[in-house]
């Protein structure tokens, strides 16, 4: 049975469907023509071989009356730009520009420029939308330029030049900020940079003045050529490369220097290896992954580790160490994970729906949910049970030093019941069986290897 990918419908020439475990791309006549131009080009073979473009094979018979059909390998875990770190979006932007430059050398263009066409596999960006490529016609401008600025360049500028996280913006408006909005955000000094004057201020002005005008024919007649696109792409590449974010080393970045973390880390790692050995999972979600120490242990067992944390700096560091590893990085608050959104509320599925883990790591996290976010312990356990998978859990008692810090300004009556170890075990017993437990040194923390009842 064939089912349509709810996120692939905008381009009528090419749409993704699933047939069992197979990922197919169905093409209409125009899409097939574009593929037949792309496939024999030197660009295509080189881009696939270098791991920048998704592997693609043509099927002999196209289903559903399509003019042609292609098959791709399945992406292990799909993430979205509003879940990426700064460096991930920057690497994706550079890939987009490099592919366009290389494609143009083979007489091919990329008709859009959205990070939703890029996924991270084994810690590196991979361009997945074969349908974006088509033959370059002389005199045509780069149709994706404005989209590139809104979905790659401006979000990166937000962080690098205005110290604002781009993820909340892209999650709220997946089209990204407009040039006009960026002009309002950037301070005087940043707005006067030459690159800002061109890509932000001048684009905002020209978009305002020329809204709705048909100019593609004008440009062609005036002598527009691919060389102009290449010149623009080269300068954009330098600009993107120049954008940096110094996230500092504060808060959780110093996590591993905390007393209890250094003391307990080895024991927790061994307990986790033991639990994973019993469950033999294929997809592990690490809730509150921090620097990815436990995600790395899970990935080393051969599982895909999905490392989720709301604090971008720690994941930025993990990304720098994740190349070649089976770790997927997700910037998202656990108290407000990415929802299903886009067209009909189905275009971009919710984070937890995409994650679909068969093992959960919840180390060093539930006390933050209970004491910082005021989630009742019963609700935390209900949520963990909803994964319907084994859980490696670290319980932290009210007597723990960290809990003392988290509750320093809270009164007893402001805290939910179910926090003491005795009460917590009663709640635990309703949802899980305990396969194994271990009290950590200090006596205020207990590790549990849980299986759902």
């Amino acid at each position: 049975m064939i089912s349509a990918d709810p996120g692939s419908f905008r381009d009528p020439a090419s749409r993704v469907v699933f047939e069992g475990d197979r990922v197919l791309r169905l093409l209409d006549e125009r899409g097939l023509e574009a593929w037949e131009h792309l496939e024999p080009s030197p660009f295509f073979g080189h881009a696939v071989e270098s791991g920048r473009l998704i592997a693609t094979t043509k099927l002999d018979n196209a289903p559903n009356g399509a003019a042609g059909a292609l098959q791709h390998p399945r992406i292990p875990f799909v993430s979205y730009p509003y879940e990426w770190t700064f460096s991930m979006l920057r690497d994706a932007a550079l890939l987009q520009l490099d592919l366009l430059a290389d494609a143009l050398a083979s007489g091919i263009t990329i008709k859009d420029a959205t990070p939703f066409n890029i996924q991270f596999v084994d810690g590196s960006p991979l361009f997945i939308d074969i349908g974006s490529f088509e033959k370059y016609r002389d005199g045509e401008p780069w149709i994706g330029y404005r989209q590139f600025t809104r979905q790659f360049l401006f979000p990166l500028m937000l962080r690098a030049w205005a110290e604002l996280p781009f993820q909340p913006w892209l999650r709220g408006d997946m089209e990204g900020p407009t040039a006009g909005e960026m002009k309002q955000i950037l301070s005087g000094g940043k707005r006067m940079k030459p690159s800002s004057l061109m890509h932000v201020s001048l684009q905002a002005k020209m978009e305002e003045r020329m809204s709705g005008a048909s100019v593609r024919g004008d440009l062609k007649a005036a002598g527009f050529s691919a060389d102009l696109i290449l010149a623009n792409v080269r300068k954009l590449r330098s600009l993107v490369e120049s954008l940096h974010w110094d996230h500092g080393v504060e808060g959780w970045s110093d996590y591993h220097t905390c007393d209890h973390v250094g003391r307990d880390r080895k024991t927790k790692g061994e307990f986790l290896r033991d639990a994973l050995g019993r469950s033999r999972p294929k997809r592990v979600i690490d809730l509150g992954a921090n620097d990815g120490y436990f995600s790395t242990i899970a990935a080393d067992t051969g599982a895909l580790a999905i490392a989720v944390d709301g604090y971008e700096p720690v994941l930025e560091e993990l990304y720098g160490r994740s190349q070649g590893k089976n770790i997927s990085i997700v910037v998202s608050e656990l108290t407000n994970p990415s929802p299903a959104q886009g067209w009909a509320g189905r275009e971009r599925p919710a984070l937890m729906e995409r994650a679909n883990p068969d093992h959960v790591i919840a180390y060093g996290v539930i006390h933050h949910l209970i004491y910082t976010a005021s989630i009742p312990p019963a609700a935390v356990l209900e949520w963990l049970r909803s994964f319907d998978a084994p859980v490696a859990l670290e319980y932290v008692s009210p007597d723990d030093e960290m809990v003392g810090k988290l509750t320093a300004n809270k009164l007893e009556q402001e805290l939910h019941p179910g926090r003491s170890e005795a009460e917590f075990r009663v709640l635990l017993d309703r949802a899980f069986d305990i396969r194994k437990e271990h009290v950590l040194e200090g006596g205020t923390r207990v590790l549990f290897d849980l299986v759902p009842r």
Partner: protein
Amino acid sequence: MIFGYLDAGSGSLILQAVLGGLAGIAVAFRAWKARMMGKKAIAKAETGAEPETVSDETAVNSES
């Protein structure tokens, strides 16, 4: 012409020529001039006056 499912933005398209360097600025200027002449011709036709000779560039535009 490439069929576009994406709204490229008219101002952003012209801007691309400018961003292409000196040669691009010349292209952008010619494209802008062609637009102005095209508008002038349309305005005259709408007011009943004889349109001025339409440039080659504008003639090409009408086919795009």
